């Protein structure tokens, strides 16, 4: 069953077509990857899927429901949650508090419950913290819970962003270049974490430059070049595709 389906999605900025008539489907329970050279429109496509940008044309449907043009927060509430290419943590908060914010959708309560602090909201706060600790353990930051997010190493910040996104209990997690700036060891750890995420039932769609990571963990790869989908298939199929070799190895481009 497909969890995400794009139909003829196009995004133009003035005269520039950043995403050009892209179609694909993502299967539930898999790791899928979008790859492509710099400027291929990967991040724009991510922004369209997650609701940060409305597409110029086309539809995005998630779990069989059209989500095109919905506000970001509503898209997130449906279970489609993203991370950012440039890490967007809450720098003044501890790692634990960052993950706590991630549980916003998984908890309830507004001004009144905060003021009266009744039994239910106290119990909920305990659950939220317990879950946050569990998620920090899950990504390997168990011992960093009380460290300020800004004080973490870059690799740890990436993992924290993943833990925070997981706190929303997403059905589909979009990771925007999660391995950018990580060393080999950190990338290997990230690959393991992504594997664990999928094993727990959350589907994952990543944008990635790190080919070895994509080839290791993805079941399906979609290749973009100049905003167009030029290939899709298993990592092995894609690797052999002449269009992909062209785009990556610098064949002659016909505009």
């Amino acid at each position, binding site marked *: 069953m497909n969890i995400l389906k794009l139909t003829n999605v196009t995004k133009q900025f003035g005269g520039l077509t950043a995403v050009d008539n892209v179609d694909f489907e993502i299967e539930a329970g898999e790791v899928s990857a979008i790859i492509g050279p710099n400027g291929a429109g990967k991040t724009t496509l991510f922004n369209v899927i997650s609701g940060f940008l409305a597409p110029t044309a086309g539809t995005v449907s998630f779990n069989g429901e059209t989500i095109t043009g919905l506000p970001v927060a509503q898209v997130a509430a449906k279970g489609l949650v993203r991370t*950012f290419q440039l890490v*967007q943590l809450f*720098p003044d908060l501890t790692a634990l508090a960052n993950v706590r914010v*991630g549980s916003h959708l998984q908890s309830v*309560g507004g*001004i009144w*419950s905060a003021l009266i602090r009744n039994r239910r909201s106290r119990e909920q706060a305990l659950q*939220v913290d317990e879950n946050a600790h569990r998620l920090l353990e899950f990504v390997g930051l168990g011992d960093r819970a009380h460290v300020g997010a800004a004080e973490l190493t870059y690799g740890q910040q990436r993992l924290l962003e993943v833990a925070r996104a997981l*706190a929303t209990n997403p059905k589909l997690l979009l990771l925007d270049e999660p391995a950018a700036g990580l060393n080999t060891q950190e990338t290997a750890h990230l690959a393991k974490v992504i594997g664990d995420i999928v094993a727990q039932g959350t589907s994952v769609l990543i944008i990635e430059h790190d080919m070895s990571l994509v080839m290791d963990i993805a079941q399906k790869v979609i290749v973009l070049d100049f905003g167009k989908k030029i290939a899709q298939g298993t990592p092995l199929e894609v690797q052999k595709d002449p269009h992909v070799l062209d785009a990556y190895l610098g064949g002659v481009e016909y505009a």
Partner: protein
Amino acid sequence: MQQPNYNRAVRYFLLLLCAALFVFALLSGGYLITVLSFAAIYAIFTIGLNFFMGYAGQVTFGQNAFAAISGYVSAILTANYNWEPIVAMPAGIGLAVIVAFVVGYPVLRLRGHYLAMATLALGLITYEIAVEWQTLTQGYMGISGIPPIGIGQWVLVDPREQLLFLCAVLVIALLAAYRLKESRFGNALVAIAGSEEAAKALGINVPRYKLAAFVISAVYAAIAGSLMVHFVGFVSPEVFGLNMVIAGFMMLYVGGIGSIFGPLFGALIVSLLPEVFRGFKDYQDLAFGVALILILIFAPKGVASLTSLFPKGRRN
């Protein structure tokens, strides 16, 4: 091994100092009571400012508008229509809340400097209305004969009683701010301040939470405005002019923006320092200015930041 928590010790020391100050004023009486009463009222105003600016990371130059609305409603209803202050106050706060909703809804789409300009305009418009709507506000003349807070026969006439009452309201205001900050609601606000994009991506309804923070901030301002007119017994447009915004900003930054107790520390320091320098006569303002600059040089995140001076105890 757990290190002793020096930060907590510093915080308790500062809070104890504040409490001692109020107790000393209550015992000694005199002018200090008046100064501290104003400080308490301003602290409440600044707690509200902190909500919107410190926690939610937005900016407003117009919170004096809500103090003015509530203050004038209190003044008019009690002085002209003989309402009980305790009934007039909620009416004023209610009107301020309504205005905050109506103004906040469109204005909070703006950010940064644009939001600052729009809110500044709100304060200026309120001021102009207070000046021009003479049949209601008596313009620059102002409204006098506003009764002090009380219920029926039981009225707080004695300055000591008034200060005690203001302290009680201040403590409740601080407790409410603390509980709101340390909650799902407060987490969402702090998230918006940290990264609006990330907050959205985690499912936080950013416009709604901003509006809520703005309205809460207005409630604090409105409470301060009402308390002010009942305490002074008089209101004119100047009471809630731009000077109120400037004082609030000074208190917020000197005390420590974003911290729970910052507004309390700031309000006390900014209220007391000019009195300390009274002996300097013509150079009073100069000395006050120098003192503020020195505080911000040595505690750039405000006095409350002294409570995180010591590195956190680390295990291993």
